[in-house]
């Protein structure tokens, strides 16, 4: 069997922009995700970073089957999800589960924790017969570090970090191989964030899970990811190993993003290479021609408006980078 458990090929999601109340006319499209290729290998963590609105959640929702792609293909364990039978598609879906950002709103307040974690069995009853489910739910509670005796409690009786654990337990119910985490620790305080990240790493080791870990916090992603993809306006602009992206970034956007992250060490104050971007991110309904970053890029030339740079390794970048003028620049460490 191939080592690639999940693959997206040229995945696109355009949301129609309509006008008119009675007769809706389409006047354009929000190009939320605009041609993304990615591969997830067995047992690895692929981090996806980018600023709000760049299409991370839309991509995540397509990968787990909550959103139908406008075009492109999605392969789970090598099988094209658009081409397989209904049963097989369900089995494929079962294999990928989503953990969402906000533990405060993603859990139904009227359901007990036991019902929340056991709900996936209602959708996929073939996985486990009814009489065995309660014991399985208690096992899951234990696995994520919660007290199995609290199975009849309600979400409001848990703290934010504990609610995120409930979300993780629920995602694990059907024994998936792939977990997609969309900003799983963004709403948590740092001391709790570390608890949840340590739990995710422990579960990956014990269960051999593959993760896609989406976050806007670049330090968190560095900590947990093996490989990283950087998104801007619906596209991946640079991808590589954690080391390549953080130590040797070559795309100007990646460099600007990294240079803006404060490092919790006052000794480094003012010693890092700071790139302050001007202007706002353009609207995904009307992205710039050529390179989408060119309206904010200090290196932009004429060719950048004419030709969209391919995401590829090239002179100046040993790993794939979508910039005509890719070159390494260290923005993470102190410069002397």
């Amino acid at each position, binding site marked *: 069997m191939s080592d690639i458990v999940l693959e997206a090929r040229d995945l696109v999601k355009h949301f129609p922009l309509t006008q008119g109340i009675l007769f809706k006319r389409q006047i354009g499209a929000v190009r939320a995700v605009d041609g993304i290729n990615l591969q997830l290998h067995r047992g690895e963590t692929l981090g996806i970073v980018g600023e709000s609105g760049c299409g991370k959640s839309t991509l995540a929702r397509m990968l787990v089957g909550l959103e139908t792609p406008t075009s492109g293909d999605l392969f789970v364990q090598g099988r094209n999800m658009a081409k397989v039978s209904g049963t097989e598609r369900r089995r494929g879906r079962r294999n990928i589960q989503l953990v969402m950002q906000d533990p405060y709103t993603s859990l139904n307040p009227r359901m007990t924790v036991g019902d929340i974690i056991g709900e996936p069995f209602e959708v996929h009853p073939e996985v486990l017969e009814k009489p065995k489910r309660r014991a399985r739910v208690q096992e899951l509670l234990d696995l994520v570090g919660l007290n199995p005796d609290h199975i009849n409690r309600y979400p409001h009786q848990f703290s934010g970090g504990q609610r995120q654990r409930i979300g993780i337990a629920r995602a694990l119910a059907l024994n998936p191989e792939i977990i997609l985490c969309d900003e799983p620790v963004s709403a948590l305080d740092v001391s709790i964030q*570390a608890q949840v990240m340590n739990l995710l790493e422990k579960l990956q080791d014990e269960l051999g899970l593959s993760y896609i870990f989406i976050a806007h916090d670049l330090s968190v992603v*560095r900590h947990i990811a093996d490989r990283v993809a950087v998104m801007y306006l619906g596209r991946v602009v640079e991808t590589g190993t954690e080391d390549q992206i953080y130590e040797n970034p070559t795309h100007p956007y990646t460099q600007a993003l990294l240079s*803006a992250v404060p490092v*919790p060490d006052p000794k480094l*104050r003012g010693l890092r290479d700071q790139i302050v971007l001007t202007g706002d991110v353009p609207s995904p309904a009307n992205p710039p021609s050529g390179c989408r970053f060119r309206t904010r890029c200090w290196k932009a030339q004429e060719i950048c408006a004419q030709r969209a740079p391919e995401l590829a390794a090239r002179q100046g970048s040993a790993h794939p980078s979508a910039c005509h003028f890719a070159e390494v620049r260290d923005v993470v460490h102190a410069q002397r």
Partner: protein
Amino acid sequence: MSTDVNVKLDTLPGLDSDALPLEVKDLHVEFRTRNGIARAVNGVSFSLRAGETRAILGESGCGKSVTAQAIMGILDSPPGFVTGGEIRYRGVDLLKLREEQRRKVRANRIAMIFQDALSALNPVFTVGFQLGELFRKHRGMSRADSKARAVELLDLVKIPAAKQRVNEYPHQFSGGMRQRVMIAMALALDPEVLIADEPTTALDVTVQAQIMALLAELQRERNMGLLLITHDMGVVADVADEISVMYAGRVIEEAPVRDIYESPSHPYTKGLLESIPRLDLKGQELSAIKGLPPLLTDIPKGCAFNPRCRYVQDACRQDPVPPLHQMSPTRSSACHFWKEVKADV
């Protein structure tokens, strides 16, 4: 229109221009709720010099915003009440002033910006009208003059095309630009102290960097005191001079910024530093702090941090609460065992 141009600030009783622009002493705030009394602020003290940046650092619910609200006099009351302490502006205790004088000090000398600019701005008036109103109301300026000042202010906070944008409404600005508008409003009357409560928490990092750079520049130019309330240890390391770390409504450690990161001397501060991943470090171990912060309606006896502390001893579970020990002229820690904690690296 009512104006307060006639209330003179220099006649405030006890005003001392040599005293610090802000001094908070032993502040207590509680919320009287159906679920009991939430002791949100339990004896907080700190001071702020002109031109200094003091960070108030702590996780959600520890009383940072309530402290700021008490200083600004915008506490949600009831249920919130200041039950003790002093809040001094240049020697004058604001808590003892007549309402009208207190409002005047707060409007002119101490200003505040928030995480959420949209809720701080009025959606039905243009940005120019809202800025201009400050000058009309507090400086008695004419319409034309105040409009001109509004444009100057938008320029000051680097909003492009200020002349046109002054006629737009808050919702027409992006998140970062709205934050700039709020900064412009706060600086309109030349305050000596600016309180910024999580000013960049809702923003993307590239925008956060722009806003923090702007705040630092304006602070330098005006020699303002900046009280920066945040939970972000990265931002603090970048901009603060002094830090007060809060836990369960108290300051548990206070020090110059370098000292705190180099040799944290309270187990909570130490735990926080060990639980954040760093951008520039690879394969770093994260040691989480176990457990959760307490409910402020039910703060543990003795040291509030004792159920989560890895240095805990019997004495920590008994009253009295550990006081802030003065470790050196510039540092203090509210841990009985700060010496051991500081030495343990």
